[in-house]
């Protein structure tokens, strides 16, 4: 077990969700992450969010569906009831298609905003849908740090997990903007991952992590295809960490965060 040191956060990963190009879920993607030579890029297939009540399911866009898919995977895999689970949702952009539709509607000669579009425009819309679906009154934080959103989310989730001594579900998700915003913020595809964190000392975790803030260059993916995803999609900054967990071997992964301060994650199986 990783020992507690001031300024470091020790947490266990007890559930993982994943959805990306050629990465349909954590269970089937694990082998490809451990040995990327076996990874085949393929279009993302988003499962229907069966967990959502009918009204919310009708109103949910792609980003919400992706988030719910990975959150469900992580909770199911861990055998944890999400009903009382605290959450952290990390995204660089919120719902990009919704943002575009609102900007377009407001630019016209007769500006109009649909109530559902406005409600979905808040950065925490995804978190709101998840907590409605799970009837969870536990705390939830939604955050953004542009390209460093995954590192910020992992830090915040681990902070809540250690400070509150309770499990915290981290969901990191990004989907592309339509044009014209795609040209100024191009994302090649959607990517979502969920990490269910538990206080250090969990039974049979998928990995034990120790996090610290240190200067350092981010760890790349040693595979051109995965590295292209990592570099281009903020949520895919999780890939080197997911690869380290998939390999079931001790590793050190550096995730970019501030300009001169990175998140150094020691991974132990």
């Amino acid at each position, binding site marked *: 077990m990783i020992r507690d040191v001031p*300024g470091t*956060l020790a947490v266990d990963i007890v559930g993982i969700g994943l959805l990306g190009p050629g990465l349909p879920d954590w269970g089937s993607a694990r082998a490809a992450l451990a040995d990327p030579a076996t990874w085949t890029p393929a279009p993302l297939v988003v499962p229907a969010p069966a967990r959502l009540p009918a009204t*919310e399911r009708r109103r949910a866009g792609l980003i919400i569906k992706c988030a719910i898919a990975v959150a469900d995977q992580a909770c199911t895999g861990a055998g944890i009831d999400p009903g009382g689970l605290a959450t952290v949702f990390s995204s*660089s*952009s*919120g719902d990009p298609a919704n*943002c575009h539709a*609102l*900007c377009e509607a*407001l*630019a016209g000669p007769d*500006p*109009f*905003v*649909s*109530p559902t579009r*406005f*409600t*979905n*425009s*808040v*950065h*925490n*819309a995804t*978190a*709101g849908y998840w*907590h*409605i679906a*799970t009837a*969870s*009154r*536990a*705390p*939830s*934080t*939604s*955050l*953004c*740090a*542009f390209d*460093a*959103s995954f590192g*910020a989310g992992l*830090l*915040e989730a681990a*902070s*809540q997990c*250690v*400070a509150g001594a309770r499990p915290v579900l981290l969901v990191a998700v990004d989907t592309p903007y339509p*044009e*014209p*915003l795609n*040209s*100024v*913020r191009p994302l090649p595809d959607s990517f979502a991952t969920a990490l269910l964190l538990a206080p250090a000392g969990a039974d049979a975790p998928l990995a034990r992590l120790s996090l610290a*803030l240190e200067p350092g260059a981010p760890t790349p993916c040693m595979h051109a295809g995965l590295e292209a995803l990592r570099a281009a999609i903020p949520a895919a900054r999780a890939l080197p960490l997911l690869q380290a967990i998939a390999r079931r071997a001790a590793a050190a992964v550096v995730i970019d*965060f*501030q*300009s*001169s301060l990175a998140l150094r994650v020691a991974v132990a199986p």
Partner: protein
Amino acid sequence: MSPLAITDYTLTSAIGTGRAAALANLREGRSGLRRRRFETAALDTWIGEVPGVDEVRVPAPLAEFDCRNNRLAWLGLQADGFAASVAAARARHGARRIALVLGTSTSGILSSEQAYRRRDPDSGALPPDFHYAGTLNTGSLTAFVGAALGLDGPSFVISTACSSSAKAYAAAARLIELGLADAAVVGGVDSLCLHTLYGFDALELLSPEICRPWDAGRRGLSLGEAAAFALLERDAARPRAWLLGAGESSDGYHMSAPHPEGAGAADAIRAALAAARLAPGDIDYVNLHGTGTASNDLAEDTAMHDVFGAHVACSSTKGATGHTLGAAGAVEAAISLLALEHGVMPGGANRIAPDPALGARYLDASVEAPLRRVASNSFGFGGSNACLVFGAAA
């Protein structure tokens, strides 16, 4: 949690730039809301605009961040010598040991609204002067403020609608408690834009008259804009006040309507009291979320009654500032700190007829009284709730 020293704070809103203007206006019960138009919005409503934001220029090296939200942030950082206080803290702790956690709901989205009106007629492209990362992206706020203050510690934006900047206090306190930082700049900045004016209007939550929290005839909220900041430090010789506790919860009920019995709100208040190791009777005054919508005030009143009974004095200051959304938590934290430092409970502005359905001990006029502990409620869309508890310096 361990009490955390608040060594400086500031607020800039429709009731003035800096603490002194806000305090004087709150004492006198003056509102900063005016019936006027904003930008191209064709809506007849009252807004809490900060004068002079359009004239603010961000420093030239940070030109890529130029937008209404970051201009307002820059204006707010200069008020009360706050930027100088942070510079002194940076000299004490080092740039990497000061966290930066800020809240916003719409960031620089006004820039994208304007850019969409200037798309290339042939290609549809956005104008070349539109800078996505510096304006529209939610993370623009901490990127700008971090660069402006020369900070390099852990930094991110919390965006949970109207609880954003209250939750920033909670997240920053955790980073300090866990040894990941020795100090933190917290706060929130949100600025007027068409999204929120038309959006709240579409939801029939935007009042056609000045907002009247806790009034029997309240017709909705009035939008405002603001920048408010505070400096939290692990150790301080002369704190201005203390952050004693923070509580967070979700409703898990509806995207845009509060839980009708205020169950999530009550959870957050109780969690804040528990974190501060206080009983409800230890709180002297509560600054309410009090938006002036029919459903918020009713649900919040129920939560207040559940936790405090009918005894604690409370008011909403949104009749003075307007609802500043992602900045509201930080604005009302700063008002709570003014209340503690100066011994004044601000009255809620604009109320004509008390709502007999609401039982809270709501103050219509300011009351001078020594205060030991004050709480501030913040609730947002998506069912996001937060409550902060502050204590007097001595």
